[in-house]
């Protein structure tokens, strides 16, 4: 559904964030962009979102450039409006598209249910835990029914237990919704557990060094599956060779 061909991006300060990146993303896939800090994986996500433009190379969507709402974006922090309730935060993307609350209300409620936050509609961000704030953030990305969900290290700031729960819930959401997910992470365990396809990147300049298909069964039990351990070992080996 999306093809990047020979995409490069150099910042004004001379840093070469991405060098000659070519990547095809199939509809419905769950792709992890995995690499250390500074390998350009967030830049790549921003280019795909249209928040930044490449210096050279091209970025082609099969069905033409995405309209607002076709892409959902989840940041590393929950980035909620602190003065607004959970429901108002989820309402925001629809509100910006000119929908009234009377039309959007049921969709907002449904999105909150999807992320397991029914009953928290009126809670303010400061009354919620870090994990719950991230759930609100995911609901806000889902409320426009996006075809592609772009996630930039969304669970990096959470504790291990909360992270595992959110990863499992994200997987079942992905199976239910059938949308495409591009997930930036610097945790190879996270990538191995979540993704169907792992794109390994290396820094300075940011480029793709490996593309691995995952054979790990999808589900909460995957962490105990031998194939998961094998995949982690596999990625670790590739990372060593790349370094």
């Amino acid at each position, binding site marked *: 559904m999306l093809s990047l061909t020979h995409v490069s991006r150099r910042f004004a300060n001379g840093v070469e964030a991405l060098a000659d990146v070519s990547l095809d993303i199939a509809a419905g896939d769950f792709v992890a962009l995995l690499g250390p800090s500074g390998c350009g994986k967030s830049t790549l996500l921003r280019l795909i*979102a249209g928040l930044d433009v490449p210096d050279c190379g091209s970025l082609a969507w099969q069905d033409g450039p995405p309209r*607002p709402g076709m*892409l959902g974006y989840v*940041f590393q922090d929950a*980035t909620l*409006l602190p*003065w607004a309730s959970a429901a108002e935060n989820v309402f925001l*993307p629809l509100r*910006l*598209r000119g929908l009234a609350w009377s039309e959007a209300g049921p969709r907002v409620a449904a999105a909150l249910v999807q992320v397991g936050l029914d009953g928290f509609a009126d809670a303010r961000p400061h009354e919620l835990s870090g994990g719950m704030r991230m759930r609100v953030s995911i609901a806000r990305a889902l409320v426009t029914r996006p075809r592609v969900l772009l996630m930039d290290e969304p669970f990096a700031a959470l504790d291990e237990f909360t992270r595992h729960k959110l990863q499992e819930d994200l997987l079942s959401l992905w199976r239910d919704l059938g949308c495409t997910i591009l997930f930036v992470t610097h945790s190879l365990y996270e990538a191995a557990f979540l993704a169907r396809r792992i794109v390994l990147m290396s820094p300075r300049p940011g480029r793709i060094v490996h593309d691995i298909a995952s054979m790990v069964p999808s589900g909460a039990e995957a962490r105990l599956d031998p194939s998961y351990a094998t995949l982690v070992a596999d990625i670790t080996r590739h990372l060593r060779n790349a370094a």
Partner: protein
Amino acid sequence: MNPGSRLAPLVFFAAMLMAWEALVRVTNVPSYLVPGPWAIGQAFLGAPWVLLGALASTLVVTAVALLVSAVVGVALAVAMAASPWARAVIQPWAVVLQVTPIVAIAPLIIIWVGDPFAALVVCAVIVAFFPIFSNTAIGLGAAPADLLDLFRLNGAGTWDTVRLLRLPAALPYFLAGLRVSGGLSLVGAVVAEFVAGSGGFASGLAYRILEAGYRLQIPRMFAALVLLSLAGLAINTALAGLARVLLARYGNAPEMRAR
């Protein structure tokens, strides 16, 4: 705060008053040089309505000036946030107004603006508007980059971004500026009254202070000063309370913690 720390400033204040009174009595300084608290209290109670009326007159100027400052300050800050052109045009004038000593231009303003009340308000606004303006401008620019990206991704226009993100994000900054401006508009009102008072049309506290000075009614002059200080404290407390109420729903969100 425990009761002890609430009480401490009051006890200290009472002790200072007693020490002052004792010093004045022991050294036998005449009250037209340094009046004691007792003499000041008596001067106030001798003709309370004269001073209270003057205070009311000054407070009306202060309140109107603060309101005008808030409207003008926020409007200019929003204009600057919406357009780089407006920023380039407004910024230097705001700074020029801020560094111009009001005492130097008050006589001109009082001559130019025919209506005495309006003249006082204009002077007080010139003194008071800058903190509101500059704080709001900083607040409008302080919206988190990720949230700005989110608005862009959802196709938000400039006005929606200002209304739904930049203005609410600037509220804590605006309220901090408002608190500073509250005190300044009182100062501005009094300074303008001083200038206008010698021109012969005014009824504010500054006029009473000048009058008492000419007549060597020093205890009364002190009483007027005390009223002025109390008014300043009250304005500050009221604006701090307003900020607490308005910011209650912000919680202590890390993105917006600016008081």
